[in-house]
Structures are given as C-alpha cells and as structure tokens.
C-alpha cells in the first residue's frame, strides 16, 4: 500500500471510530431523555420531540465536536493538500517548472554529496574496524607529524617493510603492489588487474570471503602456495558465478594457481578501484615480481598498511616504528627509511587530499550554487503565485479564515510541490550517479542503489532546508493587512508588492549563473588547451599492441620473433597504414638516461642538473607510424642496425639543453660513459613520456637494433582513418600469431592518455552541465517574473497602446527592469568570480582564472539568454489587442 492510501485509510479509521462513539453517546442521551419524558407522561412521539428540542441542533454539535477533535489537524491538512494538489494540476506549466526545479536542485546536490561521501567519509567496504587500520608510508627523514611530508618515500622497499613487520609495533602489517596480469592462455587470455599481496593481507584487513577461503588467514599460514583469490566481479564475468571454480586451476602469467576463494564484489581493499585477482607475494607471483625484490633496497615499490594494536594510537605507533627503524643497523646504502608516517583509511581524517577530492569538493560547491538558484526560482514562483492569488486570499480572509488558516494554505502549496519534487529528486540523483559511474568508470565507489539510506537522508534534509527558505520568503510576502486592498476594484497596482524581492532574486540568480558559466568556460578552455597539446602522437589513428609477458615466459630472442611476426601479419591488413616496434610502452614507461654530453662543450652534463632525461628504444619508422606532428630530420630506418653508425633522435627540450645556440641535427652526443658519437638524425617537437602534461621532459630515442639487450615490448600501428572500428580485427590478427599466447593488450593512444585528461574532461563536462542547468533554471525564473509582471500591468499597457504608444517603446519600459536586474547580477557575479578566482588556479591547465575573453563570452551568453527570456513573454503580451485587454478587467 502506498503512503497516500495508508494515510487515507488511517484517517478514515480515526474518523469512523470517533463518529460512531459520538453517535452512540448522543443516542444514549436521547434515549434517556425520551424515557424521562415518557415517565412524566408524554406519548413516545411527544417524548422524542421534546428530547430533540432540549438537545438542540445535533448536527451543529457534531460539527463543533469534529472541529475540536485531536486529529482534526490531519484532516484539515489533508484537505489543504488536496486543494493544493488540484491547483498544481490546474496550472501544469507552473507545477512542472517548480517541481522540476526542486528535483534538479536537490538531486544534483544529492549526487554530489554521494561523491564526496564516497571519497571522503566512507571507509573501504568489508574492512573490519577500519578506524584501526592505517596506511603506512616510509620516510627517509624523521617524520614530523602534521607537516608536509617532503622528503618522504611513499612506498617502501621490501627490506624496510620486513623490518617493520618484524618489529611488532603493529598488530599486523601487510604490503601490496598492483600489476596488470595475464589470465589464461591463447585466444581466451585476458589482461586483468591484480594485487600482489603479502600473505597476511586479508587477515590484517579482516575481510571475509564470499566463497571458499583466503590465503594467510591463520598466523602460521604464511606461504601462498600458488593460491589465488578472485573478485566476485571476475567470478561472475568469467566463471558465471559457478561455485565449482573454487579449487580449480587457472593460469596467471607464468604460473598455475588454484582458486582459493572469492572476495566480495565491492571490496576494493585500500585502493579506489577493485582488483580482479589477489596473488600472494612470493618468489613466483606469476612472474610479475622483479628478480631481486626481496633484497633490493634501492627501489621503492611496496605499499603498506597496518592494523594498530588495541588501545594504541597511530601517533605512538608512528613514534615507536620510527625509533626502531632509525636504530636499525643498515648496510644498504644511504637512503634508508628512518621512519614511517601513518594516515587513516577514511580520507576526511587525513591531511592529504587527492586531486579527485579537490575536484569533487569544487563540484559539490557548484552543485550547491545550482541549489541556491533553484531555491530562488521556487521562491520567485511562489511569490508570483501569491501575488496573483491575492484577491482569492483576501476573499478567504474576509469570509472569516484566520491568518493561521491562510498560512496553512500557503504552506500546503509548498508541500504539494515538495512531495513530487523530492520524489523526482531521488530519481534525478540516481540517474546522475549512474551517469557518473559510467563516466568515471567506477573509480569512485558511488552508492549504486536508488534508495541508499544516506542519500535519502540527504534528500530529506536538503529538501527541508530548501522548502523552509521558500516558505519563509512566501509567508513574508503575504501580509493579511495588505491583502484586503486587493479586493478593491482596479487595485492592480497594489498587487505589485514583492517586486523588489522578485528582482533581487533574479539578480542573485544571474550573479550565481555568471560564476558558474565562467568556471565552466575556464574548464572548457583548460580542456581545449590540454587536448591541443603536441604529444608527438596522432591520438586517434595510433594503436599500441603489447603482449602481457610475465618474467620467464619468453626470452628476448623469442620476443623479437613474436613481435616481428605480429608486425608482419598486421601489415597485411588493408586498414593498417604502417607499423613499428618499440621497447615496452614507449609513452608510459622509461628508464633514466645519463650522463650525456654534447660534443661541442666536452663538459660532462649530468642529466640531473637540468631535470632528468629518459631513454626509449624504438624500431624503424616509429615516428612516422605514430604520426609525430612536428619532426625534423629523418626517422630511424632498417639501416640503423647493430654495427652501423650510432644514431639518436632527441626531443626539442633535450636538443635545446645540449645545444643551446644552434641546430642539433648532425651533431654528436655521448651517452653514459661511452666515448662513442651518437649522431643526432632527428628532432621531435612535442613529447609524451610518462605524463602527458609534463611538458619539460627531456627524452632520447635510440634505435632498438642498436640497444644492447633491447627487447621489443610493444607494437605501434597506424590505421587508415580512426582506429576505433579496427581494434577487434587487430586483436584477432595479433592473437593468431601463436596458440599459447598470454593476454594481448590493444589500446588506442587516446585511451592511454584518457586517464590523465580525465580531471579536465570531468571538470569541463560537469561544470558545463551544471552551468547549463543553472542557466535554464535562471532563464525560466526570469521568464516567470517578466511574464507575471506583464499580467499585472496588462491594463496599463492596454491603455498606453490604446493611446498610441508603440510596441517597441512599451517593450523597452517593461523589459527594462527585468534586464536591469540581470545586469546588476552580471556585474556582481563577475566581480565575485574574479575575487574567487585565486582558488580556481590550481585546478586549471595553462588558463588564467581571470581570463577576460572567457568572462566576456560568459556575460554575452547570459545576456543573450536573459534577453530571450524577457522578450518572449513581453512580445506575447503585446500581441493581444488592447481592446481585449481593457475589456477583460
């Protein structure tokens, strides 16, 4: 049964019960009275008549008792609500705008709240007592709590982690590292995301499996023994949720594993996105650990987390661990961890905020601006309605309605909008969350249910606050004393009350709109700056293909054969224009290069002095294949093989560093300690190395064939036209090279940078979306105000027109006040935006937060929309013949 029916039935029950009791009591009274009269000698009819006379009008007594009944307010509210509901239906335009405005205002905010909540306030799912678990970061200096952690390593090396684990300052510690691994062999093989975890990982977090068991759950169970835990998502996707999969065998990388258990689907451990498989960190680890990971103290790669012992604070654990680590006798070079820094799992309690958190806080602020605009709109609509119905209210008052009854009526109007509005807000919130989940690819664990308790609570509270504001404005505008004048004929002017409030609401809306549009414009400009970067790669036509080869699976020579064969087959395809081989992920990984020297100076330049350089080895025709936009000199060719003269290609940053004065082409550079000349044959304009947005990166490219131990790690393909439709064909072709291949990764270059561009895309599209919503809401509000003003001034306008005033003149006078309110808002909004701009600076890319062009465009857009919103209702009103207008009064 729905709420409305329930309420109706309840009301009926209460009323029926009370009515029947009242009737029984009255009946008893009448019977006693009749008996008395009969005793005194009256005939039954006479007795009945006299009893009725003594009792008085039974119906009027009934009526006064109904009014006095304790639940009477339910009935009168229900009556008012029914009335308000009917009024809503009678004015569908008004109702749709009011309900939609409320729904969008609240819904957008609820969705943003969900984002903030997920990022900042919710602890990771399935972690037992998450407040006792802390992330552990290692520092090389004494950790100073609460201060910036510069000089800190965030990750640990394994020896330091082991020292910490052995020290016993934590109840338990676990380390983890992520990797993309190949699951299965052959055509079915696929790349999945893995976490390689120390055996006590699941025990430390206290998570329980959905099916089967986890490894390392008992303190003595420290050996992984080739057991793997898979996620519920992978279990459903890959194995159809079959429980038989537990105990079965799967191939991951170079090893075979037994499926031990299924982890809950929304268990993301300590990261934002869920892994598909969890591998125990041991010597094998599927071939995804580097050779000397247990003993190497020079590379820092291990993430760590620990559970605090009962009733011990994080600060004291931090101090004890730091004391222990700094007292350790190390023989592992100078850069040894001397302390740790702990941070809580729930982001809101930590000091460091990620970029995502910053952007979401911005978005939440923007959403609340949208809500403010929505508030102003609803308030404006209610005021307009109240003024329009002033005469009706006045009649009510003069027929004896109390002021309280009138207020109840006004409130019922608002509640009648609130009920459908807030219901629709639940839907809006859900749709936005779904869209955002699709858009940000579930990196943020947004609540997935439509009826999430926290979201419903937010919608309830947010809605209540909004409506309180609207109610306050609405009630303050209806003054019973003033209303009576509305009854007087020709008193139209007296109904223009609230005009000041209406116009200031328009001003506020315009100001907020300017701020939003301006921010959206800045983000859009940032995004276009980012997209226009010269990365040296044609993003849409370049595809990178790589085999996910675990350590020990193929020798370098075998890899060479594999990639050569793949390239040969791919080149047969008509959609492929050219192809080239490169070392692993030429854009996303790299090894440091240095020292390097230019022939002319003969002075050794450490790369570190002016920023570090990176070296990549690439095959013949690489730069043509990836469509380098700005390139001078020649590409590598098959002639640049081992034994041939050594050649290099530099990017402009590197060339400028080495040859500040002139042309680097044809010059010699010396790499490492070799005294051999590497002749510069080409210079690449824009580079993309590791991070697309790090534009001062210095890079050196060597021919793959001239690199000692150089093994191919990826195949670059240039397609004819956009590569997107050809990805599947490329994949099958590459997979056909051998029957027992590991997973093949096929990605468009643009997908590889998508992650990096995402904050700007997200910012531009969400800010843009919000700004559009805000603009539409504000335009509707302005339209409403002007249309309403027009109806109030119809008579005056009619008289003027009848006296020969020109339409254009009237338009100017009527539209003027509405537009003036907008212009004032525009000025206020622009000034406010410029003042607030310094907080925008760090979320923009090479865009001034005070960009005058964007501000100008913003103002023009707002003005144009305002002019339309004003002109349409005015023009509509002016089309009516003045005689009709005058007659209607």
């Amino acid at each position, binding site marked *: 049964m729905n709420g409305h029916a329930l309420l109706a039935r309840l009301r009926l029950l209460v009323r029926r019960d009370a009515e029947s*009791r009242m009737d*029984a*009591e009255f009946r*008893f*009274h009448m*019977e*006693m*009275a009749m008996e008395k009269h009969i005793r005194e000698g009256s005939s039954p009819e006479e007795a009945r008549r006299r009893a009725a006379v003594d009792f008085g009008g039974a119906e009027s*007594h009934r009526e006064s008792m109904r009014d*006095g009944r304790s639940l009477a307010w339910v009935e009168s509210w229900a009556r008012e609500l029914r009335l308000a509901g009917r009024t809503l239906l009678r004015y569908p335009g008004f109702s749709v705008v009011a309900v939609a405005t409320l729904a969008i205002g609240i819904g957008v905010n609820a969705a943003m709240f969900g984002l903030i909540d997920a990022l900042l306030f919710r602890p990771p799912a399935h972690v037992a007592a998450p407040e006792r678990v802390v992330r552990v970061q290692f520092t090389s200096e004494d950790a100073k709590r609460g201060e910036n952690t510069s000089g800190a390593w965030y990750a640990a090396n394994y020896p330091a982690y082991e020292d910490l684990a052995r020290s016993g300052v934590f109840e338990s510690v676990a380390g983890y590292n992520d990797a993309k691994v190949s699951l299965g062999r052959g055509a079915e093989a696929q790349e999945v995301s893995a976490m390689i975890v120390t055996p006590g990982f699941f025990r430390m977090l206290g998570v329980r499996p959905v099916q089967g068991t986890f490894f390392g759950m008992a303190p003595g169970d420290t050996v992984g023994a080739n057991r793997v835990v898979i996620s519920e998502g992978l279990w459903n996707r890959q194995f159809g949720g079959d429980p038989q999969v537990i105990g079965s065998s799967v191939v991951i990388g170079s090893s075979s594993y037994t499926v031990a258990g299924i982890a809950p689907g929304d268990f993301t451990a300590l990261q934002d996105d869920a892994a598909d498989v969890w591998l125990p960190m041991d010597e094998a680890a599927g071939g995804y650990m580097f050779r000397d990971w247990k003993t190497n103290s020079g590379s820092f790669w291990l993430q760590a987390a620990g559970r605090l012992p009962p009733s011990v604070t994080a600060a004291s654990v931090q101090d004890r661990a730091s004391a222990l680590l700094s007292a350790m006798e190390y023989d592992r070079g100078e850069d040894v961890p001397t302390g740790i820094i702990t941070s809580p799992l729930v982001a809101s309690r930590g000091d460091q905020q990620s970029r995502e958190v910053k952007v979401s806080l911005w978005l939440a602020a923007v959403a609340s601006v949208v809500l403010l605009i929505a508030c102003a709109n609803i308030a404006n609509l209610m005021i307009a309605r109240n003024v329009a119905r002033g005469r009706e209210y006045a009649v009510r008052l003069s027929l004896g309605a109390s002021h309280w009854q009138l207020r109840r009526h006004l409130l019922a109007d608002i509640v009648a909008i609130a009920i459908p509005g807030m219901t629709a807000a639940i839907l809006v919130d859900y749709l936005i969350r779904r869209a955002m989940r699709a858009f940000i690819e579930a990196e943020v664990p947004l609540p997935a249910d439509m009826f999430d308790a926290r979201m419903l609570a937010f919608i309830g509270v947010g809605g209540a606050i909004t409506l309180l504001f609207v109610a306050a404005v609405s009630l303050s505008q209806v003054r019973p004393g003033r209303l009576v004048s509305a009854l007087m004929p020709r008193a139209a002017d007296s109904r223009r009350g609230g005009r000041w409030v209406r116009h200031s609401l328009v001003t506020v809306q315009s100001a907020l709109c300017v701020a939003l549009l301006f921010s959206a414009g800045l983000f859009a400009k940032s995004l276009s700056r980012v997209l226009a970067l010269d990365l040296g790669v044609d993003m849409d036509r370049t595809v990178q293909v790589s085999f996910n080869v675990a350590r020990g699976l193929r020798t370098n020579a075998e890899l060479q054969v594999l990639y050569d064969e793949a390239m040969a087959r791919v080149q047969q395809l008509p959609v492929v224009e050219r192809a080239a081989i490169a070392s692993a992920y030429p854009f996303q990984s790299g090894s440091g290069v240095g020292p390097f020297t230019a022939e002319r100076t003969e002075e050794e330049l450490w790369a570190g002095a002016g920023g570090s350089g990176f070296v990549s080895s690439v095959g013949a025709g690489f730069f043509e294949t990836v469509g380098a936009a700005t390139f001078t000199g020649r590409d590598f060719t098959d002639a640049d093989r081992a034994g041939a003269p050594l050649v290099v290609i530099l990017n402009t940053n590197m060339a400028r560093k080495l040859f500040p004065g002139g042309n680097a082409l044809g010059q010699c550079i010396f790499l490492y300690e070799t005294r051999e000349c590497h002749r510069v044959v080409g210079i690449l304009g824009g580079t993309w190395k590791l991070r697309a947005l790090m534009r001062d990166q210095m890079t050196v490219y060597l021919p793959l064939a001239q690199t000692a131990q150089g093994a191919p790690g990826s195949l670059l393909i240039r397609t004819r036209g956009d590569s997107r439709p050809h990805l599947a064909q490329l994949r099958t072709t590459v997979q056909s090279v051998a029957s027992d291949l590991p997973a093949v990764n096929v990605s468009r270059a643009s997908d590889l940078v998508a992650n990096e561009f995402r904050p700007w895309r997200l910012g531009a599209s969400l800010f843009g979306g919000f700004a559009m919503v805000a603009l539409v809401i504000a335009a509707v509000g302005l339209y409403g105000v002007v249309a309403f003003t027009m109806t109030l001034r119809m008579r005056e306008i009619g008289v003027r027109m009848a006296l020969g005033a020109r339409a254009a003149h009237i338009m100017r006078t009527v539209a003027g006040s509405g537009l003036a309110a907008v212009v004032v808002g525009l000025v206020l909004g622009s000034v406010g935006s410029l003042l607030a701009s310094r907080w925008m600076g760090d979320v923009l890319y090479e865009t001034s937060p005070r960009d005058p062009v964007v501000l100008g465009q913003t103002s023009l857009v707002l003005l144009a929309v305002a002019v339309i919103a004003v002109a349409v209702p005015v023009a509509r009103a002016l089309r009516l013949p003045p005689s009709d207008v005058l007659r209607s009064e």
Partner: protein
Amino acid sequence: MPARTATDALRGSLDLLVLKTLSLSPMHGWGISQRLEQISNGSLDVNQGSLYPALQRLETDGLITSEWGTTDNNRQARYYRLTAAGRRALGQEIESWRRFAAGLESVLRTS
C-alpha cells in the same frame, strides 16, 4: 494546560459547572445535564447538546477523562471523571469566577 485568565470566565461558565458537577462523582453526559438542571432549578437553560462539545474540549485539555461503562439498567454509556489537573483547574475556575462576580457586583453597586 495553559492557565485560564479572568476574561475566559464568562465563556468558561459551562466548563466550570461541568467540572463542579464531576467533582462530586463520575457521571455520563445525560447525568450531568440532569444534575445541572436539578442544581440550578431549571434557571440555567443549557442547550443539552452543547454539553458534549464542552466535554470534548475539557477532555482534550486533560481536565477530565472518559471511559465507556455500563449503567444500572445495563446500557453502554460514556462516563466522565475529573483528573488531578481538572481538580486544580476547578479551584482556579471557582476563584476566578468569584473575582469576576465580585467585580461585576461592585460595578453594579456603584452605578
């Protein structure tokens, strides 16, 4: 329950009479009406039906409570009874009525 002020005295005269009547013993509506007629020797021409809204009001204010019971000749009737608050209110009502009556009396005497 809000304190009743002297201005309520006139309007509340029926309330006062009902409270006074119920202070003697619990009674149903018919009984109250008969008792009022008896005591006042018919000089109080109370419209019998208007007693019931008054009873409801007093009950809502918590001065009396009611429950359904059986009369001597086995009929269902609603019996009203004074509450502790009602007993206190009765004292105040009598007091304020007396003040009102005395005030009225003195006005009448001087004129």
